[in-house]
């Protein structure tokens, strides 16, 4: 029954993935909107006031999702970059390239929301706790990845070099995180820590989970959208690009 066999590798070429991505993107936006609406509803209209932090704790409904996404995206990005390096597939490397800016944005939002959470709770805009400090270093790792890609002219060389950087980064993230925790506990003790979340009511957890799913779907949608632009940029002189429906008017 060869008709029912899905040839997954058919989609590993930019030419076939471009239209597929185009069809998938609206699905992910819809999912993101649904999860987001549900998550925000629970977060702002169902979850109760916190005993110690009042209404200010509601920032976790965005802070935790973007933090998780920033770390998750880095992992996924490094995986795709590694696959592109080992199997020499262009599309995998392009996927890594399209994930990086979204991941960097998540890291930045994590720092921003972390600061906005820390100011009312602990009095300062910045707290050198393990999580925020590691998040800052993660942002640097993202920026380094993007900078290296931008600075090498040959696209395949840029793919491979940044893949190595991403893989080195992945190995280093746990080391860095551990060393920052070590540094933090020696200097400050555990008194100041954003990782001490308020004791979670069931609804709070649900809100966080739904918002995380929202940001996950959003990241996929955004990465796929950017991937389509990257595919066009890098495959500009190929046959299938000239036959694109978007360019039909020119061809007439």
């Amino acid at each position, binding site marked *: 029954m060869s008709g029912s066999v899905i040839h997954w590798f058919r989609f590993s070429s930019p030419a076939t993935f471009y239209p597929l991505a185009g069809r998938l993107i609206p699905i992910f936006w819809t999912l993101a909107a649904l999860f987001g609406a549900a998550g925000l509803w629970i977060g702002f209209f169902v979850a109760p006031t916190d005993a110690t932090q009042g209404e200010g704790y509601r920032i976790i409904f965005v802070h935790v999702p973007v933090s998780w996404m920033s770390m998750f995206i880095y992992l996924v990005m490094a995986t795709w970059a590694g696959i592109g390096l080992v199997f020499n597939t262009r599309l995998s490397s392009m996927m890594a390239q399209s994930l990086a800016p979204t991941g960097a944005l998540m890291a930045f939002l994590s720092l921003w929301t972390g600061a906005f959470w820390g100011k009312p709770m602990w009095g300062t805009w910045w707290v050198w706790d393990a999580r925020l400090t590691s998040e800052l270093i993660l942002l640097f790792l993202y920026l380094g990845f993007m900078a290296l890609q931008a*600075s090498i002219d040959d696209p395949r060389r840029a793919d491979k*070099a940044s893949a190595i*950087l991403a893989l080195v980064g992945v190995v280093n993230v746990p080391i860095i995180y*551990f060393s920052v925790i*070590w540094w933090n506990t*020696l200097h400050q003790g555990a008194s100041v820590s954003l990782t001490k979340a308020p004791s979670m009511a069931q609804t709070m957890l649900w809100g966080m989970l739904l918002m995380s799913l929202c940001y996950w779907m959003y990241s996929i949608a955004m990465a796929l959208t950017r991937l389509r632009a990257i595919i066009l940029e890098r495959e500009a002189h190929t046959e299938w690009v000239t036959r694109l429906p978007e360019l039909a008017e020119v061809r007439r």
Partner: protein
Amino acid sequence: MISVMAASLHRDLLLVMRRKSEVFTALFFFVIVASLFPLGIGPDPGLLRKIAPGVIWVSALLATLLGLQRILASDYADGTLEQMALSPASLSAMVAGKILAHWLVCGLPLVVLAPVIGLQFDLGASAIGLLVLTLLLGTPTLSMIGAVGASLTLGARGGGALLSLLVLPLYIPVLIFGAGAVNAHLAGLGAEGHLSLLAALFIFAAVFAPWVAAVSIRISLE
């Protein structure tokens, strides 16, 4: 493999000896940067004693960063690196020799000069001794990690600034454990934990860095 590494080391040292000024540049940079901190903060000896380990470590880190591109850039420019990659001898061994040469020229002088800077900051004798030990363990690790960064940025636009952006996040654990060891000692806690972690990083880098750098060099040469 050792002979390849020794040959590479010998060659790089020979090349550096012809331009001795480069050795002193990194050294002077180390001293100047370390001296900037008291000028910026104030001469209070109690405060300086407290910040000394961190300041000296950061200065050593930045001085190491300065000399990193030299490991590979000139060989890349005149085609020698390509010949090295094409030869049947192990590229990792050659890179290891280059890293060792870099450390001997950029790292070891810092270790030797650190006690003098330590005195400038009024550090006690035992603290200075510990500081020298951490630098002895840490600066080779910095050279090794830096070589990976240098091999990734061969022929890339952006030069030293790009290399710094890539390498500094990776340097942070070394900095934390190195300076932390001396800080722990000054606080009366033991430095053994920090030192073992520093040693672990050293071993980890020694095992993987030359190989990763060799792979990156081959990629950059494509």
